[in-house]
């Protein structure tokens, strides 16, 4: 009796095919399609087939539009500020779990993880309510603390809206960063993290000279992931301000989505999407260059 | 007949040559022991027999067929791995039963066989434990159990007793040898333990740097080593080597001694002429005389004396070479004293220092 028996390379191919086909269908083909769409004039048609080849004209138009520059500026500003805050707060949170009295570690960790579990779009709804002009919690706190006389118009004042979005976003982002960094810290030998409990200048120095270099790979990966997340930001914008007031909080992704599904201008939308993609690509390449010396792809080779 | 034949085997890992053109036959129903320094390719050779590595060139035969293209699960071999490789998520029982289950043996039979095997290894009370709840020695015995529960064509054992304590090791080696002889399975056995090598082997193989230096019955390797390396590797404490030259007049001369060439070796030594040579003598073949007389030609200074109970191990300085000798327990010498050494002439070996080859009359 000869049973069907597969050797390793055959199995490898069989095992990889489903994932590869899936990725081809829902990642690589769509990217190609988006690139193609961005070279056609598809304004005011919802049709599948490209209408008129216009080459780079969509990009030219996009690059000439004020909206594009304001959205790219906001996207970059948002990413820069949000990622800095996330990493700083995340690091403080992660370290605090090591610093606090042993019995509180578990509780603190649980508290830190909770915001991570909350979907971004729901987070947007929650904060929309927190920012409510009449009965919002934040406005009330502002008044109580004496920062303002009346609750500020968080979501309708253009400069406040930018910060309102960032604060709402960082609330969860800091939690995400903290979880990553806690993971990294878990790999630092216990004596080092224990030593950090002895307060004073020495532990601060030790933190910078020993702990930080040791978790550098984790820090860099956190930075990369959070930067990528920032550059593609969509949900929270859509839910919290929908790009408003005016177009002050529009990001590349939110504009792109509007062009696709609201204005039904696939060509224009694709151009925005491609720019987003390029930004993410540039960020990744910079990071990976920077990060490479820190990594060994342990075990994944043979 | 399940002899195993490795034929012109070469194995490279990138630029490292782990096995360099080895041809060797492991005879049916014999226990062949492989010894050699760490990294000499013992494990690699076992893995190729098991089918876990493909030779870069050459053929592996098991029985009458070339098995190069036969995957491990069809080779009918059982292997004990150097680091146990127990399945962490399975109990001891399931670990030992795994080879039987893989081959679809009936359930009723599996239970009996596993229990019997476990009992013979003193694991009967541990059957429900997981590997992480075992000591190193217990894990090793489970690994052995997993191999011997079946009656395979070939046993491959990679240092199967290395983690047991001395007493258990002696018991287990007798146990394994007995088992192997009872069921008559061709066995390839790797060890670093001299006693294991000498007592268990039907055939002993000494390897170095991916080549086989000598293969034969252990006593032959002990008595008639082909070269300096084998001479030094087999036997414990190991053979002493004194650099010397043949300077005519029937005598070997080295720093601080002259020694008359034993008659049977005269012809080959004379043939070697003025080549640099090495005189080899085992510690147990040296007589120590605390009162040197005028006729003694090998004098030594006592450097250290270590009583081993049954005998004494002496470290002695001959010229500028340290050698070791075993003497009776009642020898009366003091440190730095000068003693005379008598080498048993029939046990003296002479090697060509450049080629490291032994000189024998009939070679």
């Amino acid at each position, binding site marked *: 009796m000869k049973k069907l028996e597969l050797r390793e390379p055959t199995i490898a191919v069989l095992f990889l095919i489903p994932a590869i086909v899936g990725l081809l269908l829902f990642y690589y083909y769509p990217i190609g399609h988006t690139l193609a769409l961005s070279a056609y004039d598809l304004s005011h048609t919802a049709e599948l087939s490209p209408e008129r080849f216009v080459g780079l004209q969509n990009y030219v138009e996009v690059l000439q539009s004020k909206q594009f520059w304001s959205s790219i500026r906001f996207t970059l500003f948002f990413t820069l500020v949000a990622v800095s805050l996330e990493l700083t707060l995340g690091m403080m949170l992660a370290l605090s779990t090591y610093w606090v009295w042993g019995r509180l570690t578990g509780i603190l960790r649980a508290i830190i993880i909770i915001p991570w579990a909350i979907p971004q779009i729901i987070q947007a709804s929650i904060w929309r309510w927190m920012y409510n002009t009449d009965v919002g919690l934040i406005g009330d706190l502002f008044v109580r603390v004496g920062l303002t006389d009346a609750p500020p118009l968080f979501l309708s004042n253009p400069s406040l809206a930018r910060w309102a979005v960032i604060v709402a976003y960082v609330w969860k982002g800091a939690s995400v960063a903290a979880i990553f960094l806690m*993971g990294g810290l878990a790999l630092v030998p216990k004596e080092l993290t224990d030593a950090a409990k002895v307060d004073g200048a020495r532990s601060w120095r030790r933190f910078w000279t020993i702990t930080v270099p040791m978790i550098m790979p984790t820090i860099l990966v956190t930075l990369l992931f959070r930067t990528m997340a920032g550059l593609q930001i969509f949900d929270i914008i859509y839910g919290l301000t929908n790009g408003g007031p005016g177009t002050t909080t529009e990001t590349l992704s939110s504009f792109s989505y509007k062009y696709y599904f609201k204005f039904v201008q696939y060509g224009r939308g694709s151009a925005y999407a491609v720019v987003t993609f390029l930004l993410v690509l540039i960020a990744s390449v910079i990071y990976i260059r920077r990060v490479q010396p820190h990594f060994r792809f342990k075990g994944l080779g043979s | 007949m399940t002899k195993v034949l490795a034929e012109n085997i070469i194995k490279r890992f990138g630029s490292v040559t782990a096995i360099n053109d080895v041809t060797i036959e492991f005879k049916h129903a014999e226990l062949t022991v492989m010894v050699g320094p760490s990294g000499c390719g013992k494990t690699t050779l076992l893995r190729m027999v098991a089918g876990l590595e493909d030779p870069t060139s050459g053929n592996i035969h098991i029985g009458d067929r070339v098995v190069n293209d036969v995957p491990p699960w069809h080779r009918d071999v059982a292997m004990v791995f150097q680091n146990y490789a127990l399945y962490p998520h399975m109990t001891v029982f399931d670990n030992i039963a795994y080879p039987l289950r893989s081959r679809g043996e009936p359930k009723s039979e599996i239970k009996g066989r596993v229990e019997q095997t476990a009992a013979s290894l003193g694991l009967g009370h541990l059957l429900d434990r997981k590997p992480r709840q075992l000591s190193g020695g217990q894990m090793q015995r489970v690994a052995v159990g997993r191999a011997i529960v079946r009656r395979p064509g070939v046993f491959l054992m990679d240092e199967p007793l290395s983690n047991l304590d001395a007493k258990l090791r002696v018991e287990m080696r007798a146990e394994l040898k007995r088992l192997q002889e009872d069921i008559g399975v061709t066995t390839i056995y790797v060890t670093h333990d001299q006693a294991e090598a000498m007592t268990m082997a039907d055939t002993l193989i000494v390897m170095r740097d991916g080549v086989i230096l000598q293969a034969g019955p252990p006593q032959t390797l002990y008595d008639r080593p082909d070269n300096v390396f084998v001479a030094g590797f087999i036997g414990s404490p190991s053979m002493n080597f004194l650099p010397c030259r043949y300077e005519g007049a029937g005598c070997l001369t080295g720093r601080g001694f002259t020694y008359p060439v034993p008659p049977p070796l005269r012809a080959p030594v004379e043939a070697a002429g003025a080549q640099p040579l090495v005189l080899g003598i085992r510690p147990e073949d040296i007589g120590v005389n605390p009162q040197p007389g005028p006729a003694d030609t090998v004098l030594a200074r006592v450097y250290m004396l270590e009583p081993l109970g049954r005998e004494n191990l002496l470290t002695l300085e001959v010229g500028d070479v340290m050698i070791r000798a075993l003497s009776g327990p009642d020898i009366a010498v003091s440190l730095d004293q000068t003693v005379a050494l008598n080498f048993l002439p029939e046990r003296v070996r002479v090697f060509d220092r450049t080629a490291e080859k032994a000189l024998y009359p009939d070679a």
Partner: protein
Amino acid sequence: MSKKQRQRLHIALSVVVTIGVAFFALLPLYWIVLTSLKAPGTEFRLPIRYWPDEISLEPYRTILGPDFNVQRAILNSLIVSTVTTIGALLLASLAAYTIARLRFTYKWSSLLFIQVASMLPPIIVIAPTFLIIRSMGLLGSLPGLIIPNMIYNIPLSTWLIASYFAGLPFELEDAAKVDGSPPLRIFRQIMLPLAAPGLFSAGVIAFLGSWGEFMLAFTISMGLPEAQTIPVAVQGYTMAMQRQWTWVAAAIVLSLAPVIVLVMVFQKWVVQGLTLGSAKY
């Protein structure tokens, strides 16, 4: 300061820090829960109340009632997340096994192919995906949502599971081969069970990811209740009911309860999973 005093101070400061973190991390949630327990209409009453005066379950009754039927969206989300997770784990564990363990010439290219996908922003694939799902006739249906979601989870899951596989000793497979098992059986009987913690971490993360996924769900659901997941539903309520925040809040609380429970129960695996993914390359 004596040692004992210092220790007391440390404990006191620890309590302060923990309460401080809890305040900022949980305040928005507290606020939403509080709102969800107010009688509809009272949420706009001034001055703002920080404690519940009287608890009303009216918002929950409404939002679970026939007009909103939020449980339908929750059920949809459960279906989508569960099926997505199972599917993603299946596909990812196969790919991860190949990449981490099998001898295969193109394994580096495969790894690259899979991981590069994880760097692609959703916005660049959303429009063509919409078109693909439309041409499959799956717009406004759960399968239309599940299939792409499953694929979106492959890169991260593969990475997590592969790191896990890579950490297992190679001799285990060798031993199993010699013991008479061909590769497929080794995968099933030895490798998968041993990678269970990795699968579990990846599973929890994939589940949470698909639970909260919005852009795709929003696009594919086409506003049809039978295809709306809970984030889409909640977003819809938020937009539609600017004067009925107790209802919205109740919907939010219901949407969060399952994931918060999940995260609390499986905390360890979440952290472990992300550690594997980020630090242990």
